[in-house]
């Protein structure tokens, strides 16, 4: 099991334990975590799974692919150096524990 903490823009926190192989986006959508939409089901096509990864967890993550790079320029709330797509990072493969801040809006 891996652990994800979603910090909402209003200060609330949702903590999930998820199976390895589950993307951060999928974990949020199947557990009804508000603040992540994931319209395209994880194809790096919609930019509605944008998260800001807390700095201490950034290093372990895989490099940003071209598709992700392109989508990060299409997010509703501005991209910064902590921005990632939740559908492109997976429990187990990419992190055991992670904390992310959610943007106020995805659309």
């Amino acid at each position, binding site marked *: 099991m891996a652990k994800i903490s979603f910090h909402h823009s209003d200060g609330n926190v949702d903590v999930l334990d998820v199976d390895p192989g589950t993307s951060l986006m999928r974990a949020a*959508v*199947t557990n009804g975590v508000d603040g992540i*939409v994931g*319209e*395209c*089901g*994880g*194809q790096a*096509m*919609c930019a*509605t799974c944008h998260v800001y990864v807390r700095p201490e967890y950034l290093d372990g993550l895989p490099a940003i692919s*071209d*598709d992700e790079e*392109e*989508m990060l*320029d*299409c997010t509703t709330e501005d991209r910064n150096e902590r921005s990632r797509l939740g559908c492109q990072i997976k429990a187990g493969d990419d992190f055991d524990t992670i904390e992310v801040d959610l943007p106020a*809006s*995805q*659309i």
Partner: protein
Amino acid sequence: MTAEAIEARPVPTADWVTIEDLYRNPFPIYRKMREEAPVHWVPAVNRYMVTSYEACHVVENDQEIFSANETNSLMKRAMGHSMLRKDDPEHDVDRKSYGSVLRPKAIKEHWNAIFQQNSDKYLGQLKAAGPGADLIWEYAAPYAAENLRLIMGFHNATQEDMQRWSQTMINGTGNYADDPEVWAASEKSYNEVDDAIDEILPYLRKNPDSSLLSGMTSMPIPLEAIRANMKMTIGGGLNEPRDVLGVAVWALLSNPEQLAKVLADTSLFPAVFEESVRWVAPIGMYPRETTRDTVLEGVQLPKGARLGVVVGAANRDPKVFEDPETFNIFRAKKPHLAFGGGNHYCAGAWVAKASVSGIALPQLFAELPNLRLDPGRPAVDAGWVFRGMTSLPVLWDNKK
């Protein structure tokens, strides 16, 4: 699951629903159905119609229980077995063959300039036809068709071919009455598209460009799949931008206060686009099939149930959208389902947004002063599986 199954209620039947009523105006029917249950068996449609937002959302995100690979699919007969009727991992192979052709970077680098040329051309045609012309048939349809022709790489066809292919094959996918004339027209287009692909692939291999077909020449993808995916994209990438364009213009012209705000602040056009596809989803319903007995939002469904995922109804679910029947570009932002969701999420969503709200809408309102509906010839909206304006006569002031 067991507890759920015990509590699950049998699916209600909506025998009062008729195709004629749906075609004219499906929204009062959807409201009545949604208020009663998230899913109904509808004899006239021969499907279980899923009308609540939550139920549609669940179906879209679970391809193991709700398969896109429908048995006896008319779409497979009319267009071949495209990605739209496959589940992963097979679907994913086809989808990846589209590469980055329809993505924002390619749109910025290649397609926006082409969309602009096409909009100039057909706006010229509309102006030449003069006030009273039909905005759908003089502008929106040829604009959408010409854009799609070039995105796909059919340099050996015309936009009129694209429109004919699209409509005749779509008629095939909806030919539940098994009308032989509809099949004949659909099969003729099927063969014409195959011939056009066979002819253009060698050309594109020598003269590569940014189009879908050009990209296909270097992809490890069988010709059968290319053919089916191209036909599906002709069917799914032309009428929808045309229809959202028509509905957006009609809605703005019918709501002068909102129009005034948009004209004063053109950065509102993307909101106009999103609200238009929410309010009238161009693809109102698409099919799925259950792979096992299941319970959907408390309603029992048997294995092999043929579903219609009615996103046109989900987009007006009052549980998600306040005052859902009203067109309001300032409503609280909520994700609508007009582009579907999950693995089949529309591959052309960025193209539709760029061509319609990036180029067409701003240009129409900028270049046709005092654009307005023609009081003598009312606009007509129609359809339910696909819905849009079948006629939109407009007036404007000719520049002196």
